[in-house]
């Protein structure tokens, strides 16, 4: 009984819509979807999305490890505040993120870098994407660091290892799966970012339009096969991400 209710709910809310991804592509015709995917502006949108992701993910990976170590292993003033700011993007609307950047780097904003165009260009889109994906590596690293404890690190220290040696030989290997899991989730978040980038990019086709903005563009121009074509690519990436997440996850809760 409860099994039936749970699975029915999942079908209505999640599995049904997911099935539409393939159903609609089938109905629209794979050929038309392919034409849309290989259009120069669409290819540019994918390239731009990949570029932004390639900058945001390494930044947040390093930051996530550093901030995770600081929160778990150190005591410092303002720790509660740091913790709150790391979590904030999880609870904050991406539009609010975009608007904040818009106000900070806009005409009346506080920051201007001479002739370097920030808004409606790559820098603002990168800043927006980095902002929204700040928490994911940190949130995976923190509980793992707590769980492994610091006994091995202290032992290494007692035996004369330097801080770097301890980090590379002891700490990093013990949290590597958490980092990889965090990187996968961060990547998915960056590829799918819409709200914050929508505010700061100006969405000009062939210039500042990312893959998700491309979907909206196709949809608003009543090009269904275009919208579903780009969505299919994004959806397939999401499914790959999901498979990797499942493989990486420890067996707890699934057995």
């Amino acid at each position, binding site marked *: 009984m409860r099994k039936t209710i749970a699975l029915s709910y999942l079908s209505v809310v999640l599995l049904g819509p997911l099935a539409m991804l393939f159903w609609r592509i089938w109905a629209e015709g794979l050929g038309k979807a392919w034409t849309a995917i290989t259009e120069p502006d669409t290819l540019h949108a994918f390239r731009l999305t990949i570029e932004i992701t390639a900058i945001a993910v390494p930044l947040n990976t390093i930051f996530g490890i550093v*901030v995770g170590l600081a929160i778990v292993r150190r005591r410092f003033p303002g720790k509660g505040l740091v913790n709150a700011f790391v979590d*904030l993007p999880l609870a904050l*609307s991406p539009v*609010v993120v975009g608007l904040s950047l818009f*106000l900070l780097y806009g005409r009346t904003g*506080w920051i201007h870098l001479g002739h370097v165009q920030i808004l409606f260009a790559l820098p603002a889109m990168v800043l927006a994407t980095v902002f929204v994906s700040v928490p994911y590596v940190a949130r995976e690293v923190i509980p793992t660091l707590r769980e492994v404890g610091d006994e091995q690190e202290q032992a290494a220290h007692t035996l004369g290892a330097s801080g770097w040696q301890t980090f590379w030989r002891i700490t990093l290997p013990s949290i590597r799966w958490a980092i990889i899991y965090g990187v996968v989730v961060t990547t998915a978040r960056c590829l799918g970012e819409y709200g914050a980038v929508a505010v700061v990019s100006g969405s000009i086709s062939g210039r500042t339009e990312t893959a998700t903005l491309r*979907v909206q563009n196709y*949809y608003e121009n009543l090009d269904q096969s275009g919208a579903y074509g780009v969505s299919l690519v994004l959806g397939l990436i999401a499914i790959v991400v999901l498979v990797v*997440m499942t493989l990486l996850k420890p067996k707890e809760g699934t057995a």
Partner: protein
Amino acid sequence: MTTFLTVIVALPIAALVWASRADGVSGFWYWIRQPEPVAALKLTLVVALLVALTNAVFGTLIAWVLVRDEFPGKRLVNAVIDLPFALPTIVAGLLVLALYGPDSPVHVHAAFTRAAIYLVLLFVTLPFVVRTVQPVLHELDTQMEEAARSLGARELVVFTRIVLPSILPGILSGVAMAFARAVGEIGSIVILSGNRPFHTEVASVWILNQTQSGNGTGAAALATLLLAISFLVLLGVGGLRWLATRHERA
């Protein structure tokens, strides 16, 4: 580390709060009392609350089924739960529109209604409660439940007296995160709600529209309010975490 956090997160937030009171405190109040943003915020909060409550019930049920029941395809279902975290939200919006929109194969036409907003938010918030409750349920010792049953307790009593107290902090923090997510969601809503003022326009869409039409102060006023809600939710979740680990610390 602090520099990164300041430049990336804190400075933009400060600029937002600063801009919201660019026309003085009265300017802030003026904008958050205008009928259109008030209607948008009210709709957002009511729908988010409904979504959070729905997740409390069905998220817990799904977690329960995934931990306690056996059925073919269970591993696959368990994996698919995380899909909304991996899928771009605008794609989620498009898919819900495809199933419950004008060309619906199941003949449900909910596009551009409040019901569509509710449905798509259920999609994007699905994992929160399931993933906070599942590990707690998994570690729960079933001996207490069996003891209660052998002493004659009915199933409902077993659940409310024995299981629920242990999983309640998990449910609540999942619900809080789902609520925050629903309040701030934009990507999945923007193409399927129609964004009609006073009807299907949510707070984040109003902010986006105002920003694009040059009303930075109005947008900043409502955005500051959403920011305050986010901080409150995080504070609540922090409090719950503190309560849940109370016994470990003692």
